[in-house]
């Protein structure tokens, strides 16, 4: 934040980290698994004792929970700090915006899931994946359905 303000005062664009939330996430990733579908966040993820550090917990996505970490820019916890939601053992929903410039978090996330063999229809809905970005030039009045 301080760096961003300094840059603004000096009239320069702030330098944002080019990393994703996953790049700064301490949870364990074991690589592509056998996962075919996602489940909703209606139960606790697996982890050990309450004081077990996060680097002993398996990645939310690998546990089958939707996490927007792969398509979201890192930095929410500050530099070298665990992403905030992850530190509460809750998956990321993307509030820091797309990791690639002008990226679309919904499309990027669906692509990432599909290319890993995960059925995107296992999500109850996908519109809210675009909760914190992607509204540019997309706001328009809702189309009225024609009366039959």
């Amino acid at each position: 934040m301080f760096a961003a303000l300094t840059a603004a005062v000096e009239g320069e664009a702030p330098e944002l980290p080019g990393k994703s939330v996953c790049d700064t996430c301490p949870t364990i990733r074991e690589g592509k698994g056998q996962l075919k579908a996602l489940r909703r966040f209606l139960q606790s993820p697996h982890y050990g004792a309450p004081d077990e550090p996060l680097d002993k917990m398996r990645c939310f996505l690998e546990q089958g929970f939707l996490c927007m970490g792969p398509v979201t820019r890192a930095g929410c916890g500050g530099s070298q700090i665990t992403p905030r939601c992850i530190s509460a053992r809750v998956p990321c929903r993307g509030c820091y915006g797309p990791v690639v410039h002008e990226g679309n978090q919904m499309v990027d996330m669906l692509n990432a899931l599909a290319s890993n063999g995960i059925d995107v229809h296992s999500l109850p809905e996908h519109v809210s994946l675009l909760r914190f970005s992607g509204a540019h030039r997309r706001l328009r009045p809702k189309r009225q359905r024609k009366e039959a």
Partner: protein
Amino acid sequence: MAREIHIQPITRIEGHASIQIQLDDAGEVRDARVNIMSLRGFEKFVEGKPAEEVPRIVSRICGICPWMHHLASNKAVDRCFGVTPPPAGQMLRELMQTIAHAEDKLLHFFFLAAADFVIGPDADYAVRNVIGIAKANPELAQKVVQMRYKAKMILEKFAGKAIHPVAGVVGGFAKPMTEADRQDILAQMRELLDFALFTLEFAKEKVFPPYLDAIQTLGVIRTGFMGTVDDDGALNLYDGKIRLMKPDGSCTDFDAQDYKDYLSEHVESHSYAKMPYAKAWNEGFSLDLDDPKGIYRVNTLARINVADKMATPRAQAELEEFRERFGRPAQATLLYHWARLIEEVYTCEHAIELLEDPEICSPQIRTTAEPKAGRGVGCVEAPRGTLIHDYSTDDEGCITRANLIVGTTHNIGPINMSVKQAAQSLIHDGKVDEGMLNRIEMAVRAYDP
């Protein structure tokens, strides 16, 4: 000459609003009202979303009290899916809410309200603010900032985010508390309790006494009150029955699930905010100052009025002293500030109570839920009043309909009345000065909208 006076924006409040005062040909106040022109739309855009996602969407409604929306929403989703969080899950939710309350009251009293009393209602607006206070009493200002920071950082350190929280989840809480966390937070809450007690003494000795006359007159109206109480009739912020008190002090208790049998919403063309009123009194809706109909108030003074007692000893002693001086129900609008500081003591004491119970460290913090069709009303006491989230879900567990009644909304009608009362008693013969207009704003600030 008839004319109109605008106060725009009203400063040192958490939301956005303006005041419109109409003077007649004789320069007397014909009418006065508060316009609220912000539209949020959350009720609409949560439709179709999986219900378990909603608690982390609605937390964005308010940056000042996101925990309240987050938890009311979680309670509503629990109901829709028919799950009950385990005791430790409830305790952690309640602890977070209680600490958020403690922080919020310090924010309002010192940063928003105190300047009117400490610097004075007639002082130049350039110094009548928190910076003015910091210059007048740098030691106290430093302490206030430290204490508020401490409370916010407890939330952030434990729950990941203090603003826009995510740690409340359907069926309970997402993160268990360790013994080390418990001891650490307990020590900090004891410091906050000391500061809460100091603040109330300071206010009673130094802040309120010169204004006791103003307290008895400025913005005073006669209304009913509403707040939440537990089974023993003690004030409760997280859960319990809603108690609706008539202006004469008689009470009706009801379950939050049945709120629609007791409350209804009135719409005025000059404001986007609806005005809830007590349908159960069968007298309709009127903001007439001499004979209001269906009007009740919420927020600190209301909670203190409807509660038979406070559940913690120091807050109870303060409540007894308050009642002895001002009676029950106390109607003077500026007493909201006093009631707020009594609640501040309660929140610190109650957080300590929750933390002293080792059960809060249980790893059983979440019950697994299944999506299903249902309806649920989630209700908590937000700093600004009774907060109601009412959701319906379809078979997939997605939201089909949402109705939210946010704390301040209940107070919109009464705020309009207090502003009119203040304007009518202060402005005569068309003579208006800045001190008068600020006093009218003070009638709004008491409600902390």
